[in-house]
């Protein structure tokens, strides 16, 4: 119990419960299975990006360029779908997007590692390069009209229920993909030497080097994993809206970083958990959804998200400060 109270995740969970109660009181349609499945589907995109971001933050870095990577991978598969749509299938689409994402992530990692440029600077630069090249090539054109199988995949449900009005809803295949990625990420972080080494490197890179960890390998993995998640995320985005627009993702980096930080990951590296990340994404999701259901103008969304992040980060910083103080100074009777 005491251990539970010291965990950041507990507080995020309590915040989720509190928000849910408030929203449900104001609009009971929030607390329905239909709304839940809907939310799970539409926030799979942010959730997928968040998994990659969690890895990067734990390793002690940050990646701003992932939205640009996702824009490139998304645009590439859109072009391919329009040209060779019938000879492709969903697996090959994911493989192509993921592969390109990995390559672009490797490029980030190589620059960060070999030139010792802070990851935030590097990825702001590559964000502009990746996004700039794409804008030049695409001329900002929207792509749509994908093959029917691509649209059909989006409508697959693992099981289907019906509202009293006869409208079908249920657990979407896209949500299942997101859950599978969560499980993979959780397993890597928890049960592989690779995962623990990422935590170790984020905690103290100098110690990691002295202990004989392969820092280059770890960096390559972390940023290419982020690239992979960006690639997969771009396919999810294309599935969800059946349109690829070059400007739909860039600019949303901060929302993802905020969700992961909200879930307890530290910008200084070394901390963060998959559970916390899911909770962080959930909190952002229900707040966005809740505001709509409470008929609050969506213009307030950013303001409220900002406050929640400030409070969350502030509270955990305050708790850290208190625990270190307790440590330095012996009790006076």
């Amino acid at each position: 119990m005491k251990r539970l109270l010291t965990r950041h995740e507990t507080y995020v969970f309590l915040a989720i419960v509190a928000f849910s109660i408030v929203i449900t009181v104001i609009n009971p349609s929030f607390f329905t299975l239909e709304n839940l499945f809907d939310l799970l589907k539409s926030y799979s995109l942010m959730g997928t990006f968040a998994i990659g971001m969690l890895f990067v933050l734990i390793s002690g870095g940050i990646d701003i360029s992932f939205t640009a990577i996702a824009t490139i991978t998304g645009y590439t598969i859109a072009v391919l779908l329009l040209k060779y749509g019938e000879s492709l299938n969903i697996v090959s689409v994911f493989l192509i997007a993921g592969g390109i994402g990995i390559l672009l992530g490797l490029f980030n990692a190589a620059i960060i590692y070999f030139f010792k440029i802070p990851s935030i600077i590097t990825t702001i630069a590559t964000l502009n390069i990746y996004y700039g090249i794409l804008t030049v090539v695409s001329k900002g054109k929207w792509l749509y009209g994908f093959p029917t199988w691509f649209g059909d995949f989006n409508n697959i449900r693992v099981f289907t229920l019906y509202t009293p009005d006869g409208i079908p809803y249920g657990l979407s295949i896209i949500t299942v993909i997101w859950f599978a990625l969560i499980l993979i990420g959780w397993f890597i972080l928890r049960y592989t030497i690779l995962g623990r080494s990422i935590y170790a490197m984020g905690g103290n890179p100098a110690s990691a080097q002295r202990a004989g960890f392969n820092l280059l390998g770890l960096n390559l993995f972390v940023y290419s994993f982020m690239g992979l998640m960006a690639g997969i995320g771009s396919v999810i985005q294309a599935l969800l809206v059946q349109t690829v627009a070059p400007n739909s993702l860039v600019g949303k980096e901060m929302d993802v970083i905020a969700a992961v930080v909200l879930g307890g990951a530290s910008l200084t590296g070394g901390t963060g958990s998959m559970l916390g990340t899911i909770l962080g994404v959930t909190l952002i999701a229900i707040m966005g959804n809740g505001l709509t259901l409470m008929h609050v103008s969506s213009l307030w969304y950013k303001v409220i998200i900002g406050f929640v992040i400030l409070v969350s980060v502030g509270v955990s910083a305050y708790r850290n400060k208190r625990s270190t103080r307790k440590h330095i100074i012996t009790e006076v009777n």
Partner: protein
Amino acid sequence: MAEPFLSLRKVSKHYAGVTALDKVDFDIQKGEIHCLAGENGSGKSTIIKIISETVKADPGSVIEIKGHPVHGSNAIDAINRGIQVIYQDPSLFPNLTVAENIALGGFVAIHRKLINWKELRQVAEKAMARIDVHLPLDEIVREISIADQQLVAICRALTRDVELLIMDEPTASLTKKEVDSLLAVVTDMKSKGIATMFVSHKLNEILQIADRVSVIRDGRMVGTYPSSELDDEKLTVLMTGKKVEYQHFVAAKNGNDPILECRRLSRRGEYKDIDFKLFPGEILGITGLLGSGRTELALSLFGVSQPDTGEIYFNGKPVKIQSIQDAMRLGIAYVPEDRLAQGLINVQPVGKNIIVTTLDNLVNRFKLLDRTKVISSIQRWVKDLAIRIPSVESPVQTLSGGNQQRVVLAKWIATQPRVLILDGPTIGIDVAAKFDIHEIIRELAGRGIAIILISEEIPEVYNNCNRVLVMHKGCILREFDTRETAQEEIQNHVNGAF
């Protein structure tokens, strides 16, 4: 004598023309506790680097392990030969658990892919059992004490086959009690055939358990001595090459009115019922263990934190010191414990560091910095404190510890303080430079500045102060007049305060 575990013959090392080591002979027996003593810059760390194979010695040097010559160039090779180094900063992962810190490195080294948490705990438990220590396996390393962190580093070394453990300045940040338990662990390792090499310039505790002591000075081996033949004083002479004798300082009394007085000063969780008077021209010592409240009290006198209750009188008048600006206006200056983090702007040149406290006085009529005033101020203080630097443009991070401390002192003396609080002014400074700093402090007291000298080194406060306050758990345990007390008595009070 049996064949040594490690032997160095005529080992030299030159860095870009500078001689770091000059034909050093040195050996370590199996299971021996060996101290390598020397001042900063004497070549101690170069020896560590050569033994741990992170740098290569010059051609002609002979390094043998168990009689076999080695030509290593890789830290992993040394680890595989059973040599491990625990650095001053114990190189742990603060965000991971004790168990992971102990066992993870070994798993990485044998290229394991997956983690079996049960096995990981067993590896950690086995390592702890070898030296009979008990640490909470699931505790995050950030949350445990520095002393326990060092034990974690030792346990980590023990997960591999270690025959020689090198510890770089292991006691620097430990309390007396923690040092004792560390020494018990080392003695225990000796009985299991593991040799330990201590590298330090602060050796009085280690002398008790060491077999032999090697002294290095200016890159040359002065000699190796059985530790029974040495005491602190002899060792200092060997290390510095000169005899340093402590003269007891007697302050010239400047009047009977205290410049600073505290009455029943308390701050919750930090210090309680603090009463003392400070007179101009005296050096008042405050000693006590880490966490006794000594630094917290000083921070309140300097306006960093505020006392909850009690009064402070300055020059006979009650004052409230609510900010650092208030303290500076009264003429109170504070030289912090951690001079690198708090006292200096490391990348900035010496000159800019010195004038940073007095910028307001160095302006012309347009309120812009006056170059002539700046230069003359810098020159004055560099000369006054005999700071030895190639140029006032050198960044302070390139200076030695002793010279850095002079820069911090200069920066505060430039404000012409009436009360100067020095917190651990000689931490991490070698013996000769320490002596010079003490000279400066005494000279400042001679000018009529009232000085509070906070230090956990008893000889330091004993020899420099007329009165010494011993703090424990936030309270002043007792005040001593050093002219009427033996040094041991103060030491006993500090130690007995557990």
